[in-house]
């Protein structure tokens, strides 16, 4: 038995290590100051897919991402770790999408890709933390969903078993295929890049990348080795209704964004000296805050 797996991945700004220059003077986010990375939980998702590929020879793992042209970087990152191919959804008309417009675009691309048994994605992306796109894609494709997955336990007779990590415990569920799974950060980390795959895919490029970077166009390589051509699709390529994409397809609107300034309190400053610490403890005890 072999499976056709699509992994949904997102290139995100690394919001975990935000420096002081992450915010501009006007209070907006300075994306340029933040490194762009493979969303961490999407890497956990990729690992689950690659494990199925190890277990069931003939299984294919295909990455699908939506973003600007440079998001092709994470497709290569996935190829270096063992994925078989990837698709980049990139179009100005997708810009400004909320989760609903994003899931619509992704679902249209999946329909275009066609046949699949499993869609696996990270639980959530660190730049939004919403965890909404996975279930919304499942709904748009009218397939079941299993969220908060920690481990795919096995596939047998067209049924898949998944262990879920919930707030206060674990749950094992069984589902028919096709299915969409979202994977937690508690799942095993993704395997490292493989030197052989780096050699094989280091010149893999999208069409736009070959245009914008002619020195590294490698057009003849792409002709000789079709697997070096990463597919790039716009709105029309996936037969999407432009009204349902991007800003116009987003029911939620951002009314206001503010840099929060918390009302500063009058605070009492002290050192970590014995006298200061003892003084504080005595004060807390006499005010019955502790004791």
């Amino acid at each position, binding site marked *: 038995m072999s499976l056709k797996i699509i992994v949904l991945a997102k290139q995100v700004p690394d919001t975990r290590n935000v420096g002081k220059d992450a915010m501009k003077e006007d209070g907006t986010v300075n994306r340029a100051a933040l490194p762009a990375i493979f969303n961490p939980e999407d890497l956990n998702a990729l690992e689950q897919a690659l494990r199925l590929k190890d277990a069931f020879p003939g299984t294919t793992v295909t990455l699908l991402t939506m973003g600007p042209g440079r998001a092709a970087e994470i497709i290569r990152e996935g190829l270096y770790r063992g994925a078989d191919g990837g698709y980049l959804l990139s179009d100005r008309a997708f810009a400004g999408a909320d989760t609903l417009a994003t899931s619509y675009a992704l679902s249209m691309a999946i329909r275009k890709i066609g046949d699949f048994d499993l869609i696996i994605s990270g639980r959530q992306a660190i730049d939004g933390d919403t965890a909404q796109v996975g279930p919304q894609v499942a709904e748009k494709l009218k397939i079941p969903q299993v969220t908060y997955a920690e481990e795919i336990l096995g596939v047998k007779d067209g049924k898949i078993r998944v262990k879920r990590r919930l707030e206060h*415990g674990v749950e094992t569920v069984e589902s028919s295929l096709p299915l969409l799974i979202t994977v937690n950060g508690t799942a095993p980390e993704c395997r490292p890049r493989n030197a052989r795959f780096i050699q094989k895919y280091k010149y893999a490029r999208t069409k736009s990348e070959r245009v914008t970077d002619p020195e590294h166009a490698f057009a003849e390589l792409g002709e000789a080795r079709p697997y070096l051509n990463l597919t790039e699709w716009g709105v029309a390529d996936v037969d999407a209704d432009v009204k349902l994409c991007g800003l116009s397809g987003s*029911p939620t609107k951002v009314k206001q964004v503010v840099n929060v300034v918390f009302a500063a309190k009058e605070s009492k400053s002290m050192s970590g000296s014995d006298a200061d610490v003892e003084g504080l*403890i005595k004060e807390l005890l006499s005010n019955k805050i502790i004791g």
Partner: protein
Amino acid sequence: MNNLLVYCEIDEGNVADVSLELLTKGRSLANTLGCKVEAVAIGSKLDHIAAQVFPYGVDVLHLFDDERLYPYTSQPHAAIMVKLFKEEEPQIALMGASCIGRDLGPRVSSAAGSGLTADCTQLEIGDHEEKKEEKVYQNLLYQIRPAFGGNIVATIVNPVCRPQMATVREGVMKKAIYDENYKGEIIKHKVTDYVADTDFAVQVIDREIAKSKINIKNSPIVVAGGYGVGSKENFQMLFDLANLIGAQVGASRAAVDAGFCEHERQVGQTGVTVHPKLYIACGISGQIQHIAGMQDSSIIISINSDPNAPINAIADYVITGNVEDVIPKMIKYYKKNTK
């Protein structure tokens, strides 16, 4: 019609705290809007739900009782919510930002074509002007949440699509009885009118859900550690202090991500919200996401080697020093002065 609707999470016949908190908030929003509060309970053996929710000011309780509906699975619950939305046309729908609400909410919002905002920290009613359309939308739900790794706070609105959907984490809103004697109407629905057999594609084979032993939400004192604590070993000092003064140990997301302690202890927007009388922040810089989860503490002590740590701005006491020096001193002088 056009009421405010709350999805009630049920665990073994009991309504989850997060749902009661949402009913409390929902009642107050509904009073502002002049509409009713409708509660939805989906599961099995729901006989005791009405008595649990009515005191929170529920006007209509929708019951969907079928043994296949417990434990929760996505599609049957989503199918019920989507059809109920069509029938009731609520203007607002609220769910807990729990494993269930964050699984159900997006699926329902996709089917309903409705906007959903996750993990809101405040909900308010207000107007919104769309300048391009020269149109003012009145009495919208302001869905307020930190975003972008907690560096900004965004107010989200859904001008057109209904219902306006939002999820809120447990502990963010306060739970309070509205009226002990409040009575609403109970509507028992026929489940097979809402759910098809094919909706049961996912079966729960096994569940091991432990009652959480960690309860930092209701602890009067929280000793919380951040990335600045440095290691899992250093975190033990916080436990020592906490045991001594009757506190629970909390942590920032950075400390949890670094593996210093378990996720159940995470304080902040993506963890637990706490309102203790004393919060001791050890080596926590104070990202907005963290502050959102502890700013209502009565007294805040910040211990940080960086005198300019953002959290110091909201602290009552700022100790500039290393956590591994200061905590043992606090232990020592607490013991000395309580003998």
